[in-house]
């Protein structure tokens, strides 16, 4: 194999726990290898150039949602971003805005998602608690199951939250991830909650009526989820509760 080209990484560095540290951009050089992803590159940089570099990866296969960061202006999953995508060989990495910064490229999306789930009660509220696991299960429309799975594909990577200007301005805004999940349970025939119940949770300025439809969520979602359609659906549904 021929010698790979030189890549230049501009990486945001800041350790908020270090008393005298200030946010800065640091340049690193690295030789590209075939099939190199940002995951591979960052690990190489850490092993060979700066062992203190912080970032998060878990599955490294685009499944777990740990590694979202802003790459050349677009928030996305770093593990499945090939460096070959950047013809100039210049790659700027920033942590996702809108989340608590742990250090460098590592942000606390987990804490955010858990708090959101608690606040919006993002779990199935079954219609009956009297369920026997020994008996035949209740049937469900196969198409409904398939539709629900489509909405379940969210990996809580936080990209939609960071790409949402509304969320940046209004800290309490639930973001696309929250609304998508509400829409998922709203469409689930097994869930006991009514449109009125959901209105109490997201029928406000922090929910569907605060959303300005800027669609940073839809345009950046690594799982190509239908945010625009789902949030519009939810908004219509919530507005319909005004009429009886």
């Amino acid at each position, binding site marked *: 194999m021929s010698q790979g080209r030189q890549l230049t990484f501009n990486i945001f560095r800041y350790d908020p726990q270090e008393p005298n540290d200030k946010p800065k951009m640091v340049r690193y050089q690295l030789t590209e290898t075939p099939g190199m992803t940002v995951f591979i590159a960052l690990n190489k940089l850490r092993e060979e150039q700066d062992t203190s570099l912080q970032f998060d990866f878990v599955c490294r296969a685009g499944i777990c949602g740990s590694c979202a960061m802003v790459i050349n202006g677009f928030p996305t999953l770093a593990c499945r971003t090939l460096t070959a995508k950047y013809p100039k060989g210049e790659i700027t990495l920033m942590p996702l805005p809108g989340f608590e910064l742990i250090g460098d490229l590592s942000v606390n999306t987990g804490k955010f998602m858990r708090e959101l789930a608690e606040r919006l009660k993002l779990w199935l509220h079954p219609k009956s608690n009297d369920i026997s696991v020994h008996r035949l299960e209740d049937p469900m429309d196969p198409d409904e199951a398939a539709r629900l799975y489509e909405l379940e594909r969210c990996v809580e990577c936080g990209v939609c939250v960071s790409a949402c200007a509304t969320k940046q301005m209004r800290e309490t805004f639930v973001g696309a991830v929250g609304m998508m999940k509400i829409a998922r349970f709203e469409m689930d025939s097994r869930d006991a909650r009514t449109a009125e119940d959901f209105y109490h949770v997201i029928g406000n300025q922090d929910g569907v009526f605060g959303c*300005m439809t800027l669609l*940073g969520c839809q345009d950046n979602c690594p799982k190509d989820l239908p945010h625009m359609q789902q949030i519009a659906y939810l908004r219509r549904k919530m507005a319909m509760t005004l009429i009886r």
Partner: protein
Amino acid sequence: MAIKLTIKKSSAWLDLSQSLSGVILAVFLWTHLVLVSSILLGSDAMNWVARTMELSFLSDDGHGYPLVVTGIAMGIAALALVHVLVALQKLPMSLRQQRALRQQMQVINHSDTRLWRWQAITGVVILLLLPVHLWLIGSAPETIGPQGSADRIWNQGVWMVYLPLLLTVELHAAIGIYRVALKWGAARDLNSRSRLRKIKTIVSVLFITVGIASLLAFLPHAS
């Protein structure tokens, strides 16, 4: 079916009224511009339009009721006020919010967010210019004909208000309608979204062209 008016659901009402007032204003705006552009067909055409606006066909002397124009101006002012008050809640009012927005937009490259920022900026400009326009028309309703308008625009230098107003309002309205369509689910998939975006741009360009042409068409009438 009954409509429930509850304070509890004020958010839904606010959001609905923003969309609704915006749509009405945009429809009025475009109608208005089409009517004004009658000058392109000559002063007779515009005279006819202006007289009809004043409901001349109802009055015996054919002069109509110029107060109707004042009424329309006041109605639009009221609608615009509602639109502004509701929309203001969505704008970054505090310094902290403005900083957060600026930071995010520096880090993340997203065209629809930039589009929205233009909408916000044009909105603020319209907020300053529209009252001038409405006052001028509302206080002198009898001057909406070709001569009166031409005199106002070119001799009194009001074109310095009208030209920026035309540009901002046509951008603002088209972006706004585009967003309302997406907001309530008119675009079922991304393909129709990009199509909507194209239509939006065409509408803006078209009306700005017609508007500028109309402004220029008044020039010969200003003597």
